[in-house]
């Protein structure tokens, strides 16, 4: 009896569980269209929003459209940060924009924006575009900034002559050459006829770019040289910037100094120079750097290893940023380690007036590895207020030996503070900011996707 009872119960039990399963399934199925409905509602909402925005001239997030209040001046200002190709393309936006580009005083050309599968480097269309802009723009508007990113070869000589002949008609203040200019020689005409040039940037230049290896722009305040080769001809002190007595800011990045003869002193003279940045400078042979810059307030050196400097006085110095990038553990020999520490402590004597000193952790390590050079030595930094140590992400042992800290901080009359900074986050932020800025090397992205 008991058994038959169970037999009756089991199917019932099964039936119940089956039913509940079906019920759950049906619930799930009824849920499905519900979700679908939600998506649809959302789409409708978006559609509604775009319709509303068209009707009410509303922008996303209830924002008013911008242009209505912007003057042509502001629009020109915005377009000055846009590559000229895309600035010209704004002519299709509306009648107001049709001629606006013609009054721009910033011209930025980049051949990569004309590059396609058939025409790598975009040479033909690019040259045609540049010359069209010259002839179609409003000739009465001055060109303040002229930037040309191009991979120059000798066959482009006539094109560059046309460019030069156009540029000398204007009072250009900022001149920028990016790309590859190895065979290019800066036209003397440009130097003579454009005394208005205050800022010059040259990338990827060869030894012929600067006549005789010197800059002759008398009015130049800002000079930015990168990825270039300096010719060195004379046996004397190489002093390429003495011809720009008004220079306030100098940047040397990935520059190579070499030539037929080895030279002993690379002199950076700048009676007015305030800001000096040296980023990976390659010197042939045993060369010392001599910085003759009495007004210098900011000094930045980023390099793999310490460089040899002549000890000079920089009385106006406030900020020094010294970051060596290769870990001393990778140096080939003890001798190199010692020489690096020697060069570094020597350089610190030049930077003795710094109030803020920023060092990479590897720079600290060079000192830690040479206790003899540092222990019981007087600290050079008498005016130091702040020492910042940048630690790369992933450097686990960030201990700074007491004798190194003593060497860096003990002479300070202000009781300098120490700040350790994990730099990878900052570097990333820095890079993001850099790609957004006009002064960077990254090629322009299109402004309008047409």
């Amino acid at each position: 009896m008991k058994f038959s009872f169970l037999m009756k119960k089991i199917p019932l039990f099964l039936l119940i569980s089956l039913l509940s399963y079906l019920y759950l399934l049906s619930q799930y199925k009824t849920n499905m269209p519900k979700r679908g409905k939600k998506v649809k509602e959302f789409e409708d909402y978006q559609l509604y929003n775009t319709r509303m925005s068209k009707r009410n001239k509303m922008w996303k997030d209830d924002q008013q459209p911008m242009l209505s209040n912007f003057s042509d001046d502001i629009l020109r200002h915005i377009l000055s940060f846009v590559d000229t190709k895309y600035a010209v393309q704004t002519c299709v936006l509306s009648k107001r924009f049709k001629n606006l580009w013609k009054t721009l005083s910033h011209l930025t050309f980049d051949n990569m924006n004309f590059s396609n599968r058939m025409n790598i480097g975009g040479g033909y269309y690019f040259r045609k575009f540049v010359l069209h802009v010259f002839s179609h723009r409003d000739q009465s508007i001055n060109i303040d900034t002229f930037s040309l990113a191009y991979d120059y070869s000798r066959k482009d000589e006539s094109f560059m002559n046309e460019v030069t002949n156009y540029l000398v008609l204007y009072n250009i203040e900022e001149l920028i050459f990016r790309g590859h200019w190895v065979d290019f020689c800066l036209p003397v005409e440009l130097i003579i006829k454009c005394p208005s040039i205050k800022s010059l940037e040259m990338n990827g230049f060869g030894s012929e770019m600067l006549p005789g290896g010197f800059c002759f722009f008398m009015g130049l305040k800002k000079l930015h040289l990168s990825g270039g080769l300096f010719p060195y001809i004379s046996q004397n002190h190489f002093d390429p910037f003495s011809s720009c007595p008004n220079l306030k800011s100098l940047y040397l990045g990935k520059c190579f100094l070499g030539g037929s003869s080895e030279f002993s002193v690379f002199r950076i003279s700048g009676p007015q120079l305030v800001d000096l940045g040296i980023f990976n400078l390659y010197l042939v042979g045993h060369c010392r750097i001599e910085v003759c810059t009495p007004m210098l307030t900011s000094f930045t050196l980023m390099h793999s290893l310490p460089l040899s400097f002549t000890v000079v006085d920089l009385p106006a110095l406030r900020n020094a940023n010294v970051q060596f990038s290769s870990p001393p553990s990778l140096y080939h020999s003890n001798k190199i380690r010692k020489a690096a520490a020697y060069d570094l402590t020597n350089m610190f004597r030049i930077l003795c007036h710094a109030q803020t000193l920023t060092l990479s952790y590897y720079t600290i390590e060079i000192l830690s590895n040479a206790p003899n050079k540092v222990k019981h030595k007087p600290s050079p930094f008498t005016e130091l207020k702040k020492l910042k140590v940048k630690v790369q992400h992933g450097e686990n042992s960030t201990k700074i030996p007491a004798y190194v800290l003593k060497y860096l901080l003990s002479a300070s009359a202000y009781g300098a503070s120490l700040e350790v900074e994990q730099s990878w986050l900052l570097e990333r932020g820095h890079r993001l900011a850099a790609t957004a800025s006009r002064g960077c090397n990254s090629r322009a992205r299109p402004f309008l996707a047409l």
Partner: protein
Amino acid sequence: MSKLGQAKRIIFLKTADGQLFEVDEPVAMEFEIVKSFFDENEDAADDTVVPLPNVSAEPLAGIIEFCKAHVEFRANGAAGKDEVKKFNAEYIKEKSNEQLKELILAANYLNIKEMLDFLTETIANRLKNKSVEYVRAFFGIENDFTPQEEEAVRKEYEWAFEGVDED
């Protein structure tokens, strides 16, 4: 720069919506329009209120925040280069297009070159790679070309649309 012992000079600014701002002198002098006001009225009393009829309180507060930070960066010398970029990125991150517009109009009126450069560049970056339609909507531009006219403009400027692979 005020000397020790000497009280910092405060500049009073009154916005279009009637708000009174007390701004440290070096920050207020970042505004070319305020600077030239005091240059022209050298004997202006210390409690002179400078009216700013084209600026309302919200953008002015944002501008003061920006200029104050930049005045400090400059006082600390070039050491702030990284910090400046970091600050600028943070400053702009949370700003809506509408706030950006208000800031640009105000910075343009007050004539603050550094800030105007930064703001207009931000706009340029926000518009990069965007379609014609998007840019029109962003600026609130009404397309006043007839399709024929637009076609004619494109034809006239053919040389500006060349050299790119058709997708």
